């Protein structure tokens, strides 16, 4: 009798404590997409899978200067003048970005589209992010000849595959192809190709929530234009609330991959490179 009463009491207490208990706290979206594989859409000159959210407008100013080998006479290249690209990117949706840029070198105006095919998930159900990137440039500067509009065009196609391995390290491989409708021979024995292939490697080591060290390396695969080298850069990234600053040493002179593949003439590992910096600012338009 007493035993049964005790059991009943225990049961009642159990029920009471059960009804008093808090719900278990569970995350709302454990299989959601990973965020911040990279800080911005660009590292130095190479694109990343990091797209702008829907309605976000990113304004970007990219600069680099002359070779640091100029030493103090050229203030390590700064006196040689800057190549500047001013660009705007916009998130049509979370997965489709469009952009326009203008590079002072050759007065190249470029139009770009990024389309995200896959987005890595926190649960690893999708282990990588995949973004298809297209860019078309028009060289509007004066030439020694009179090219048609078609002859002024250059293109890039890139398939960016990236994985955020953990909170502190992300890595991306980007097979790409560039095509120039016109290539101009300046020396008799110069080897020129309209189409050049490359394989971009990009990585980011996060130092803390605000700072990271990133790198990019873009070897040409197959035929390369005479006297060109593989582009490489090492980048220090600093994020403030409104801006992302990227300071780097890079070998390439350009900020568009089709030009980095075909115009880079300094060898990062010689070592020879130039100082540069990007400033990114995102505005929410919606």
């Amino acid at each position, binding site marked *: 009798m007493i035993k*049964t009463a005790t*059991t*009943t009491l225990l049961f009642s207490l159990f029920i009471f404590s059960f009804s008093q208990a808090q*719900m278990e*706290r569970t*995350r709302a979206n454990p299989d959601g997409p990973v965020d911040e594989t990279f800080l911005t859409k660009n590292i130095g000159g190479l694109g990343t899978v990091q797209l702008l959210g829907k309605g976000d407008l990113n304004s970007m100013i990219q600069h680099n200067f002359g070779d640091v080998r100029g030493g103090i006479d050229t203030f390590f290249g700064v006196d040689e003048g800057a190549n500047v690209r001013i660009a705007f990117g916009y998130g049509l949706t979370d997965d489709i970005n469009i952009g326009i840029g203008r590079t002072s070198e050759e007065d190249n105006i470029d139009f770009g589209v990024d389309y995200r095919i896959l987005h890595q998930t926190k649960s690893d159900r999708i282990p990588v992010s995949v973004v298809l990137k297209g860019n078309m440039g028009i060289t509007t500067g004066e030439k020694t000849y009179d090219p048609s509009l078609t002859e002024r065009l250059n293109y890039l196609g890139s398939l960016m595959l990236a994985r955020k391995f953990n909170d502190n390290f992300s890595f991306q491989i980007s097979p790409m192809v560039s095509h120039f409708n016109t290539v101009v021979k300046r020396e008799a024995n110069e080897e020129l190709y309209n189409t050049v292939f490359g394989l971009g490697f990009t990585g980011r080591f996060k130092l803390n929530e605000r700072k990271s060290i990133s790198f990019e390396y873009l070897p040409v695969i197959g035929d390369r234009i005479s006297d060109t080298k593989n582009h490489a850069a090492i980048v220090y990234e600093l994020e403030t609330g409104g801006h992302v600053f990227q300071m780097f040493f890079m070998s390439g002179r350009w900020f568009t991959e089709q030009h980095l593949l075909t115009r880079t003439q300094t060898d990062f590992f010689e070592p020879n490179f130039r100082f540069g910096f990007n400033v990114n600012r*995102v505005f929410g338009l919606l």
Partner: protein
Amino acid sequence: MKKLFLASLLLVLSVSFVSAQSFKTEEGKATFYSKVPLHSFEGNSEKLVGLVNLEDGTIDFYIDLETLDTGNGKRDKDMKLTLETKKYPFAEFFGKLDSDFDPESSSVQDVSVKGTFKIHGEEQEIEVEGTLQLTDEGLHVTAGWILSLLDYDIEPPKILFIKVDKDQEIKIDALLKPVEG
């Protein structure tokens, strides 16, 4: 044996009784308003999880802070950093009804609730005014209060340009469905 049967019956009855008086949602709305001239914004989530037990008056709500959307990816990121959502992913309230509620009425009833609100790893005892209404669909809950960021040791990192009001207005609105027994 008979006693054991009675005990079991009591258990079953208790469970069904509790269930009949419990209401739950995982899709409640939560909104916060930060009002600073030229920098006003609001954040919304429709992933508020709530459980109300009218039998014992317990109220349990929580939200995954990473579901809050301010309409700007950059600002969302700054907000998550400020709230340290990786370390403290939830804002939660657990308390009890502190006023009478008539379960027979289907009109909107003003209620007050006392309990513990926890965010950013800090807890405060708070009292919240709200309304409860029993409808055919379930229990409609609304509430609002002012959250002072300083009470919870929440301070935007100095490096951020984000400007936030130190007093944030919080509103919740949820329709809780009866929990099936």
